[in-house]
């Protein structure tokens, strides 16, 4: 447990990552993702509780944990004035790899992360995506047993994000144990073996991406109508085709209905079309879609994930007077 004044950042959070697997910790801003990572990487002492990383007690032997982990933070913690090579070389020396090994490893990682051309340029000249890759490289210097990635793609443009995902998928395939925090459902879906959804410092759901989606139910039929007047007819047409009642999104004129999974989705779709046609509803769009993790999130937390706001360390910086 960890409290900042009256804010309880972590509240009985329980996580486990099997060796060689990737766990995504998914949650909105202020859910406690960064705080969890800071506790596990020895940066922060919890008020109570226990944590083990690579079989070592984090509270009792932080220095031994530090030898075995790599941390890549939410904002790239690399030195602006040093070159990419100098940054990695420095980190290698601070892991006590020795002068020669540190240099070789720095060059090697610059190659792996596609930063060779920029290796000898000060980081000041790097783009956001390049800085993130360098920060990741710094976390990889000592070939850590456990890698912590705190929102590795927050703030990146879509292209850099996909590039980062490719790099991370490669790492994951090599069997590194990874704890990844993210606000992006797609990211968790793509990279993680299992997902933990947290909110207000508590685990509210966990499982594989498919298991979580199954919790929300099966497929969803979505209809967008041409006119607001037609929404009630659409609702009555769809009612009874799935579980519960249809959900209406007024401003987009969208009506969605979660299917129960007892009948094939295509069959339900045909029946829905027949009924809507019978009501003479003018449709702009109709589709069956698989539930996304967004649906999971909405169902579990009662609010949508908020990827477009400031990262939660900003909020953490404003919390004063932490209690122990």
């Amino acid at each position: 447990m960890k409290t900042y004044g009256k804010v309880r950042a972590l509240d009985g959070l329980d996580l486990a990552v099997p060796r060689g697997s990737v766990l995504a910790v998914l949650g909105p801003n202020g859910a406690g993702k960064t705080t969890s990572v800071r506790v596990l990487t020895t940066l922060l002492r919890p008020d109570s509780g226990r944590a083990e990383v690579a079989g070592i007690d984090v509270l009792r032997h932080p220095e031994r944990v530090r030898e075995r982990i790599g941390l890549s933070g939410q904002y790239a913690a690399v030195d602006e004035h040093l070159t990419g090579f100098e940054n990695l070389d420095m980190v290698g020396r601070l892991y006590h790899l020795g002068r020669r090994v540190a240099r070789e490893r720095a060059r090697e990682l610059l190659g792996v992360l596609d930063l060779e051309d920029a290796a000898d340029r000060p980081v000041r000249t790097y783009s956001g995506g390049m800085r993130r890759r360098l920060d990741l490289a710094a976390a990889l210097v000592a070939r850590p047993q456990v890698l912590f990635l705190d929102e590795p793609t927050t703030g990146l443009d879509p292209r850099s994000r996909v590039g980062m995902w490719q790099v991370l998928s490669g790492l994951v395939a090599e069997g590194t144990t990874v704890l990844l925090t993210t606000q992006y459902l797609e990211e968790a879906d793509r990279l993680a073996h299992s997902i933990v959804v947290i909110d207000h410092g508590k685990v509210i759901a966990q499982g594989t991406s498919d298991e979580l989606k199954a919790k929300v139910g099966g497929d969803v039929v979505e209809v967008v109508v041409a006119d607001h007047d037609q929404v009630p007819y659409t609702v009555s047409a769809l009612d009874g085709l799935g579980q519960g009642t249809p959900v209406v999104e007024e401003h987009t004129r969208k009506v969605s209905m979660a299917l129960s999974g007892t009948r094939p989705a295509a069959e339900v779709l045909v029946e829905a079309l027949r009924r809507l046609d019978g009501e003479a509803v003018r449709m702009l769009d109709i589709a069956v879609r698989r539930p996304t993790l967004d649906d999971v999130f909405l169902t579990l937390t009662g609010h949508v994930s908020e990827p477009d706001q400031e990262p939660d360390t900003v909020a953490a910086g404003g919390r004063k007077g932490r209690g122990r």
Partner: protein
Amino acid sequence: MSGALQVMGDGFVIAKRNLIKVKRVPDLLVASTLSPIMFVLLFAYVFGGSIDVPGVNYREFLIAGIFAQTMIFGATITGMSLAEDLQKGVIDRFRSLPMSQAGVLIGRTSADVMFNLLVITVMSVTGLIVGWRIRTSFLEALAGFVLLVLFAYAISWVMAVVGLLVRVPEVFNNAVFIMIFPLTFIANTFVPSDNLPTVLRAFAEWNPVSAVTQAARELFGNTNPLQPVPEAWPLQNPVLYTLLWVVVTLAVFVPLSVAQYRRAAAR
């Protein structure tokens, strides 16, 4: 690696990192020397004509004071940079590495000593240009410079604690100005302390900035042996008082800043 060796090694790596910045951002050195050069010109040519220091050429009197002030400003870089590193998350990275906890601070303060050596070189040349002269032996002059740099080194550790406490570079700047201005002006740096009102005079005479300035003046031969030194013990024994102050400051602020480093990073 044994403990002490590891601390030194880590400190060396960090110092190297900080010195690379001095090399890549030459503005830093320019900014740190430009304002003391202005002070030299201002006091030497504007105020100097109206300040009478019995028995000594005012420009010779002035330079040791400017040196002391410049060294103190140089030492503020320690706190400023630590606050920046905290803000940018660089300290988080260091804290997640299996390096020594004191390494970052030792590296930081050592690099700032090197930086201050550069600054005092530039300032000495400036001094020579406006008419300052060393009138003692090489060894005495060297002792004067060493004392100034040692003094700055101790201040660096004080600044480290302040920087880690306030965490925000802009706030640090303001906090430090409030500390430094009375310390460097209520002293014998720019005018002799004899003419100050009683309370201020007592402050000035026990102010370590006065002691280091007095010590440097004596070691550079910028005092008139015929003129009496104020009777206050620190100014009668300026070298000893400065050394004592340095030792006590380090003994207090080195452990304090290491403790504050752990606490500041763990937020």
